[in-house]
C-alpha cells in the first residue's frame, strides 16, 4: 500500500507545464485533437511547434471541459473555445460581484 507521501501532487496553475505528450496522456486525448484545439485558439501553448509546445496547468481543464461540451451538448471546438472564454469571464465577474455584495 502506498503511503500518502508516495503520491505525486501537481498544482495546475499558470506556472505548471505540460508537453503535448503529457497533456494527451492526462486527458486521454489523441494529439490530433489537441492540435485541432490549438488551431481553434482553444489552447495557447508557448513554443513554436508541437514538439516544443508547453501548455499551462489550466490547459488540462480546458481540454477536459471542451471534450465534455462536445460530447454532451454537440458543441464544436470553436463553440467550446467561446464557452470556455465566457466561463472564465463569468467566474471573474462572479468573484467581483461576491466581493461587492459582501461589502
Amino acid at each position: 500500500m502506498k503511503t500518502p507521501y508516495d503520491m505525486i501532487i501537481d498544482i495546475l496553475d499558470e506556472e505548471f507545464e505540460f508537453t503535448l505528450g503529457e497533456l494527451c496522456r492526462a486527458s486521454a486525448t489523441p494529439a490530433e485533437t489537441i492540435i485541432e484545439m490549438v488551431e481553434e485558439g482553444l489552447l495557447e501553448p508557448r513554443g513554436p511547434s508541437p514538439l516544443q509546445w508547453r501548455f499551462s496547468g489550466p490547459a488540462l481543464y480546458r481540454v477536459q471541459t471542451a471534450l465534455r461540451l462536445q460530447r454532451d451538448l454537440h458543441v464544436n471546438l470553436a463553440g467550446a473555445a467561446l464557452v470556455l472564454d465566457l466561463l472564465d469571464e463569468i467566474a471573474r465577474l462572479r468573484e467581483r460581484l461576491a466581493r461587492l455584495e459582501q461589502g
Partner: protein
Amino acid sequence: MKFKDYYEVLGVPRDATQDEIKRAYRKLARKYHPDVSKEPDAEARFKELGEAYEVLKDPEKRAAYDQFGQNWQHGQDFTPPPGWDAGFEFSGGGFTGAEAEQFSDFFESLFGGGGFHRAAGGGRRHTWKQKGEDHHAKILIDLEDAYHGTEKSLTLKVPEVDETGHVVTRTKTLQVKIPKGITRGKRIRLRGQGAPGIGGGEPGDLYLEVDFKPHPFYRIEGKDLYLDLPVTPWEAALGATVKVPTPGGIVDLKIPPGSQTGRKLRLKGRGLPGKTPGDEYVVLKIETPEPKTDEQRQLYERMAEIMPFNPRSRLGV
C-alpha cells in the same frame, strides 16, 4: 423505488413529438450542464435529463414506457409488473449516453434486462487496457491556509473489489499539501488517485478544485484582498495612523486627512503571496458615534453651527 415521470423531467406533454422532445432535451441540457450551470443540483438534474431522453428519444422504449400512463406520479413508489415488457423488442436501442451506468434503479429495472443490457454491455466490453476514470472534488480552505500554505487531510470513499468479487467501499485518507499563494478555482491533481484502471491500465487521477471558506472580514478577489476598515469622523477628517490586520500580521496604515467613506487605500504586496503577490485594499468606512450625554450632543450642535456643510449639494437639494 420511485416512479420517474420522464415527461415531467423534460417538461413536455405526453403527446410531444420526437422533435419537441429533442428540443426540450437540448435546451435543458444546456441549462443544467455541470460545466456551465451554477445550479447547486446541476449534476443530478443533468443525469436525470440524460436518462429521460435516453428513453423518450427511442420510439421503442418510449412506447414501452408509455403503457404506465398518467396514473403514476413522479416520485411515487413503483415496482414494474412482471412481464411488463412482453411484446416489445429492445434490440435496436442500446445506450447512447456515455453515463448509462449511472442511470437510476428505476431505469435499470425497466430497461436493464434482456436486449438493453446486451447492447449496453456489448459496447462496454473491455478487452483493451484503459486508464481509470478521473475523479473530481472540491476542497474548501481558509484564507490563512492559502497565505501560509498548509497540509489538509482529505477523506475519500473508494469502491473496491474484494477477494470474493464483491464491491466494498473503503475509506481512504490522503494528506494533501496546499502550496501558499493558491487562489480560488485553481486545480490540484493527485496522480493515480482516481478510479482503478481497466485491463491493467493505470489508475485515473483525482482533481481538486480550490475554493475559499467565507472569511469574517476579508473578501478575496484573485490574489487581492479587500477589507472594510471602520474609522472615526475625526480620523478621517484630520488624518491618523491606525492599526490594520493583514494575513501576515498587523501593520500601521496612514489615513490621509480629508478622507471620505469608500476611499480605497492599497497595502502593496499584502495580499496572497506569489511571483507577483496580491495587494490588500483597505476601504474606509466612517462610523459616527451616537451622542449619549448632553455634552456630546452639544458638541454635535456646535459642529453644525461652526461647520456649515451640505453633503447633498450635488443632488441639487
